[in-house]
């Protein structure tokens, strides 16, 4: 079974829509700025990666009362991905279409409004939609309903890593009854309640300098900026895609593996094993990989851990490494799928986009970090990494079609 990606729906702070995002990414643009949807000046972290799009205008009006901002973004991304795949769901077998999205924390802004009604005004004020509008399975459910997709569907939650886990899940479903899977994740918690909760991770930058707040692998790394968005992908069984006339898919989800970090400090962290596992799953050697899209946590210790895993597998400075997320922030479960979309575009155009804002990569890390501008690199395979706070590691290998 070969799983090919035939459609992309991208919503990122640097650009809504595939080609807008891609042009901004190649140019190394950064979209980190004070959030506009609430006043963050009184909080210790004051920068965000916010999507500049009137998303409510793109969602059917009747769905507005029952959807969180995150779900609206997901509905738009799914629609764009299906359009990009030139796929009309009504013409497909209903039980062969699945939805497998990741989610990190649910519809937090919707949840905050309803919690405020509950605690401020009493239980009778709580919305009839609260029972599902905030919960973790909501994006999958709403996408399934909107497009009549009745195949096996669900949601995986593993903080940032979950966004890659669902691409592994998409392949699993394609080995079963599904012929196509809408997969990936779009996450958003840019409301005061989500902002304060995110801040308790202890990893968020307190810098007010948008060019210096999120500097993975840089000598000045001091945490990350939280962003919103992500990507949904249409993943199809290759023969089924070909049968409906797809001649040029973006690429293949060739390998995937997930591991968990032991608490025992004497044991090795799991990231290296995830990389090795994904390569083995893809049937590739490290030398086949043309670029690594790093998890890029942006704290010295986590950057060192990731660099050590990459040096172990690839050797020091042997493979280009990049982190376009430095320009959009960490997008919770949306970050991994966005990086996969980016990697597929890079394979298509034989180019590696740069890591925005980073100017002084630490030489001691032994990483060939792509900074300053995009680099032309003919390559057939890209590795994408995501780590979820709590110990989750996931790796995906995508290859040229």
């Amino acid at each position: 079974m070969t799983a090919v990606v035939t459609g992309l729906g991208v919503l990122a702070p640097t650009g809504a829509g595939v080609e807008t995002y891609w042009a901004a990414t190649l140019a190394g643009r950064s979209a980190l700025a004070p959030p506009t949807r609430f006043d963050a000046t009184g909080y210790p972290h004051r920068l965000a990666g916010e999507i500049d799009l009137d998303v409510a205008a793109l969602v059917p009006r009747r769905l507005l009362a029952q959807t969180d901002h995150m779900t609206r973004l997901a509905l738009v991304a799914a629609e764009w991905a299906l359009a990009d795949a030139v796929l009309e769901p009504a013409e497909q077998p209903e039980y062969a279409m699945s939805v497998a999205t990741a989610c990190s924390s649910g519809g937090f802004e919707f949840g905050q409004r309803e919690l405020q009604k509950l605690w401020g005004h009493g239980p009778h004020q709580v919305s009839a939609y609260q029972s599902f509008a905030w919960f973790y399975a909501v994006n999958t459910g709403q996408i399934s309903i909107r497009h009549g997709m009745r195949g096996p569907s669900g949601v995986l939650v593993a903080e940032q890593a979950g966004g890659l886990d669902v691409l592994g899940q998409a392949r699993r479903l394609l080995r079963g009854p599904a012929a196509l899977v809408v997969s990936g994740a779009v996450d958003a918690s840019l409301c005061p309640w989500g902002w304060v909760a995110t801040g308790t991770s202890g990893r968020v930058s307190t810098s007010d300098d948008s060019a210096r707040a999120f500097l993975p692998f840089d000598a000045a790394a001091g945490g990350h900026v939280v962003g919103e968005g992500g990507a949904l992908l249409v993943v199809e069984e290759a023969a089924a895609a070909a049968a409906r006339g797809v001649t040029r898919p973006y690429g293949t989800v060739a390998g995937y593996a997930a591991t968990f970090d032991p608490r025992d400090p004497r044991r090795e962290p799991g990231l290296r094993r995830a990389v090795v596992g994904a390569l083995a799953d893809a049937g590739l050697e490290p030398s086949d990989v043309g670029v690594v899209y790093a998890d890029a946590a942006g704290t010295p210790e986590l950057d060192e851990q990731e660099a050590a895993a990459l040096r172990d597998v690839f050797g020091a400075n042997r493979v280009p490494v990049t982190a376009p997320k430095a320009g959009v922030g960490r997008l919770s479960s949306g970050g991994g799928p966005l990086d996969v979309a980016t990697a597929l575009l890079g394979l298509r155009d034989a180019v590696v986009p740069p890591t925005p804002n980073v100017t002084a990569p630490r030489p001691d890390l032994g990483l060939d970090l792509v900074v300053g501008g995009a680099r032309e690199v003919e390559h057939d395979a890209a590795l994408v990494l995501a780590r979820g706070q709590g110990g989750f590691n996931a790796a995906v290998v995508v290859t040229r079609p």
Partner: protein
Amino acid sequence: MGRRVAITGIGVVAPGGIGVEPFWDLLTAGRTATRTISFFDPTPFRSRVAAEADFDPARHGFDAREAVELDRSAQFAVVAAREALAHSGIAPTDPDDRAHRWGVTVGSAVGATMGLDREYAVVSEGGSRWLVDHTRAPARLFDYFVPSSISAEVAGRFGVEGPVAMLSAGCTSGLDAVGHAAALIAEGSADVMLAGATDAPISPITVACFDAIKATTARNDDPATASRPFDGTRDGFVLGEGAAMFVLEELDAARARGATIVAELAAHASRCNAFHMTGLRADGREMSVAIDAALADAKLDPERVDHVNAHGSGTVQNDRHETAAVKRSLGEHARRTPMSSIKSMIGHSLGAIGSLELAACALAVDRGVVPPTANYAVPDPQCDLDYVPREARPADLDVVLSVGSGFGGFQSAVVVTREGVLG
């Protein structure tokens, strides 16, 4: 046939008792664990009944800090996982160092919702400020914010180093998490999975959100009989809480080490109704498709099903939908098949209940007893199957089917068999 999956360990936290034996005693006695909500003052709420677990963190090994900081749902998962591991007799940290071949899948519909509800009230000063106060947010809030912390707690505490995730599919989470774990074993991504589900949703926000759609019962004057699946007087479900965790092993490996095999996890299938986030189509079509797919995957004819563990939530629409689905898949055999709902006794613990029901299925196969539907007295003409009223029934069970429905449109089916029934 690929790698098969054996259940070699079970752990349970449920209303009415902590541990597999109290759980099974309650179910086979037909006792109910539903009562007036005691966790907070339920007076302002429409539904004031719940199935609460009498769970003392200190008695289960949590220190004072953990008792406060670990969300109740995570505590449940840890306690159930510990019992399941002890039952199986193996552990990820065994000297053969196979930790990376172990994985964890925990299902949950609403994660650390109790912790979120509690902390929100503090940082918002009782809902009085939109710009909530970060200075009053404790570090543990992050773990409530990302419910994957529950899976991480289980994996980290017991030393699992393979694939770990939380699965969320509303109220089918507990079936789907176990199905997901079995798939990882079948495909070779793991050899052993610590899998199951947990939810601890009895908090004001959850009670309020089900009040708003009248999904929960208003039978506040008679809490002990408030959960009435399939009964003609039913008026909604009773919110519950709990967890069940399993040790799932590749069957040949389990046999080779001489494990006690409780039952086989033979098949799982799920479909979506793509109809409504909370509504169900009356004909039960998608649930029926899931049942058909699960039976086909196990290579079992519908006539082989000896017992159905129902979703049986006790809402008017669910019980009719489900009755229609089972008839659609089992045909005339549906009328000969005892179908009961343990939610009549332990309530509906959202994502957790699917795993609690699978625990009941495995124990039913192992011990030859069909649990009853408590409180069943008045027939509903549209629910016309054998719901095993009030009293457990001894029966020789080879094949048991468990089904579930979830908000979001999820419909799932799991087939549990006696070891060796599949050949």
